[in-house]
């Protein structure tokens, strides 16, 4: 009863929701019709690229980065809208329809902003740090299979590659924290590294569970072997707790509340990127969202069958699952308070690590028998 | 006359320059020398137990500084107002911050605004640490009635007019 009072649904809001549903249905219908499109017309272009592997890879890289940038713009808008909805306000409303172009405006603002480097900063490190964060975030996306044939680099050790590359991002964050010559940033950077290294362990163990079950490290193979049943349905006893642990770790890996300690705004004044402004800040931001997309996509691949799903084309299914998981992360973020550093560490070492170890042993046993 | 005033007068009869007792409130005026022993008793005597420092301030009458303490006993909720007159040329009194830690900042404030020195205050050695509301390098004590602002040369102190 009281919820109704807090979020009174007026007639106009009902209409908005209806419009949204209709638009979503139209998009889905259009997507499901994509296999019927005359794709064969593109065949000469494909052939041209296949003959030139270097150009092919370059094109893939450009596509990936621009896809990420666009998706980042969309995700930021989505996050702000969602936060607004949760907090009983409107969110961005002025630039474009319902504020869709707000992030474009912000991006332009960030591009045009004066680039400030603190006088006493370690300048090379300060300049380098955003890219040290950005590049691993993009590299991890490389092995992520968006659909059976849309994958940057179908590496047979994809899971290992993704995990090891994503960890190196911590180096950039530490560099940012140290290079800025700001005490809050140093604290943030140190927190980030401690957090990333700790949460990496349960995360790797859970990934190992999936790898053991599916007997492959290739992400495409992991998805393909879930063709009939998603992992979470096929092995509910192992994979439901596994997915929960993975999700907690993922939140910590991408520094989202309740684990957003490295950039805790109320304590560390945004932590490692306190001193960053303009485009360097934007690069951190994009990298953060790329990490979000990667972890959510990774989770979709490991537990929710990747691109598998009825009716819709594979890419749509994968994007849908990823977006839903990102949505879940946002939901958690805007609801929960932040943990303290020691509480977060003990949560990892005293709960997640033993639990994931046990889960891994159980998985191994279930494979043997 | 209240029981509390009677009890204080038994012990400090001659030190009290002025005493007035009511049902909820007792007003005492003491000499600066008697302040410390009186306060120790006020704090520790279980029948008095004025453990709560409610307020403390000073004022400048032009001839002397008046220190004004307000204590509350948490057991009887009785209020005790203690007044101490200090000479204007050498305002110094014993610090009571060890009896009531809450007085620490109040004494700093009184030093800051009136220049009253509190012997035994933890920060008393260093005037810069004693300053609390005003900038550390402020000159003069602005709440004295004869204070005339002098521009210290530090632009952070604001554009003050010189006399």
């Amino acid at each position, binding site marked *: *009863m*009281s919820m109704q*009072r*807090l979020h009174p649904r007026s007639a106009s809001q009902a209409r908005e929701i209806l419009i949204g549903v209709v638009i979503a249905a139209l998009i889905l219908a259009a997507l499901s019709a994509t296999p019927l499109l005359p794709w064969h017309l593109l065949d000469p272009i494909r052939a041209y690229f296949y003959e030139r592997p270097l150009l092919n890879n370059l094109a893939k890289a450009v596509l990936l980065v621009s896809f990420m940038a666009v998706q980042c713009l969309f995700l930021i808008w989505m996050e702000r809208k969602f*936060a607004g909805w*949760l*907090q*009983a*306000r409107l969110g961005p409303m002025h630039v474009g329809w319902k504020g869709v172009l707000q992030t474009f405006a912000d991006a332009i603002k960030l591009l045009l902003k004066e680039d400030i480097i603190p006088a006493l900063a370690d300048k090379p490190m300060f300049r380098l740090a955003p890219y040290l964060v950005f590049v691993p975030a993009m590299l991890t996306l490389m092995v992520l299979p968006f659909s059976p044939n849309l994958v940057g680099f179908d590496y047979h050790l994809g899971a290992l590659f993704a995990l090891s590359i994503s960890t190196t991002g911590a180096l950039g964050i530490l560099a940012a924290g140290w290079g800025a010559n700001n*005490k*809050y940033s*140093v*604290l943030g950077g140190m927190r980030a590294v401690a957090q990333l290294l700790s949460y990496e362990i349960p995360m790797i163990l859970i990934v190992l569970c999936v790898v053991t079950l599916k007997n492959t490290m290739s992400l495409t193979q992991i998805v393909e072997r879930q063709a009939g049943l998603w992992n979470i349905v096929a092995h509910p006893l192992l994979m439901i707790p596994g997915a929960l642990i993975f999700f907690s770790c993922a939140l910590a890996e991408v520094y989202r*509340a*309740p684990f*957003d*300690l490295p950039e*805790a*705004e*109320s*304590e*560390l*004044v945004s932590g490692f990127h306190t001193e960053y402004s303009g485009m360097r800040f934007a690069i951190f931001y994009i990298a953060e969202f790329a990490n979000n997309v990667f972890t959510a996509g990774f989770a979709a691949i490991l537990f929710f069958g990747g691109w598998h799903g009825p009716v819709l084309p594979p890419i749509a299914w994968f994007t849908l699952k990823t977006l839903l998981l990102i949505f879940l992360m946002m939901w958690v973020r*805007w*609801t*929960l*308070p*932040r*943990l*303290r*550093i*020691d*509480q977060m560490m003990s949560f990892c070492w005293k709960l997640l690590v033993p639990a994931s170890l046990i889960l891994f042993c159980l998985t191994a046993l279930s494979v043997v028998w | 006359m209240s029981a509390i005033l009677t009890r204080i007068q038994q012990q400090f009869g001659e030190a009290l320059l002025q005493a007035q007792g009511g049902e*909820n409130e007792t007003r005492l005026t003491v000499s600066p020398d008697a302040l410390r022993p009186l306060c120790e008793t006020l704090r520790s005597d279980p029948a008095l137990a004025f*453990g*709560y*420092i*409610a*307020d403390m*301030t*000073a*004022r*400048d*009458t032009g001839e002397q500084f008046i220190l*004004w303490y*307000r204590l509350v006993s*948490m057991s009887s*909720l009785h209020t005790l107002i203690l007044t101490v007159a200090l000479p204007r040329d050498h305002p110094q009194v014993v610090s009571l911050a060890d009896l*009531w*830690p*809450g007085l*620490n*900042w109040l004494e700093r404030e009184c030093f800051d605004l009136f220049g009253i020195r509190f012997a035994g205050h933890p920060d008393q050695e260093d005037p810069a640490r004693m*300053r*609390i*509301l*005003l*900038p550390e390098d402020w000159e003069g004590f*602005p*709440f004295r009635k004869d204070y005339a602002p002098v521009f210290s040369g530090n632009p952070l102190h604001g554009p003050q007019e010189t006399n």
Partner: protein
Amino acid sequence: MTLTTTEITSPGMTLNMGPQHPSTHGVLRLVVELDGEIIQSCRPVIGYLHRGLEKMMEARPYRHNVPFTDRLDYLASLNSNLAIAQAIERIGNVTVPERGQYLRVLLCEINRLASHLVFLGTFATDLGATTVFLYSFRERERILDLLEAMTGARLTYNWIRAGGVPTDLPEGFGERLTAFLDEFQFALDEYDRLLTGNRIFRARCEGIGVISREMAVAYGASGPVARGSGIAYDIRKVAPYDVYDRMEFDVPVYTEGDCMARYRVRVEEMRQSARIIRQCLREMPEGETMAKLPKIFKPPPGEAYSRTESPRGELSCYLSSDGSMNPTRVHFRAPSFFHLGLLPAMLPGVKVADVIAILGSLDTVLGEVDR
């Protein structure tokens, strides 16, 4: 050759929290010595907002000083108005008409609600739960609308003056207020559940920043801070002013002394304030709202002080008069001043994140600390 072991120690880090920091609630500066993330020592530096209000008041007639008090505790300026108004009335022997007294209680309690709502929102934000902030500010907005209808201002009301309250309630105020309170009850329960039921919130608050009973007394803590440490010290009960002696309300007391206890005291106080407001609306008699004061107000020489319970604690005003038009000394006992004095004793040993939680739970307003 003998091997000696030397303990490797690294010098700690001195961190200046503030004066520009999102969670110091104004311009407070905490110089903290850190060992890793653990606080070794802390020295609060205040005075960044010192405007010399007390000195300015010495140069103005008594009644002209009321607007200054709006700038003391700017989250509850009506309560600050009350402190000086009461002191002026005591020094000049003025009696406030009964309706004026009721109106004062009413306004002060409404302002207390607004102030505690700010606490609720900012405290949750300090701990990372940004959403509660928006919710509590939405409720506060409605309170500000009501106060605007009454006083014409939204933050610095200047509406409790020496002698009473200048005007009566506007048309339909009681109905609007009752309607708000009816909804506010449910809203408050909901926000309380949202936070109190949250395990992370409790882990961040329970057992953090414990102020023992003895410490609270020795440092002069008052208000919700004292009541969170088990001291049933509420000026509205121990030295009732205006018509508080006729009001039925409870003083919530928790004995834990941690951030959670202080949070709970404030949430419970909001419920009690709603009770008082309802009683005021019900029982308020008709009549004058303001006593007549002479045009040239010259109180007899002497001194007077008032004791009021502001949302932050015991706010009292000390006035001394030499028989002229202006006071010779005005002094405010700001509760936040005492609470900040607790920090050097409380902080050593806690983590950086706890500093924010503790500071938030003390709910200080730097306007009244620095004056």
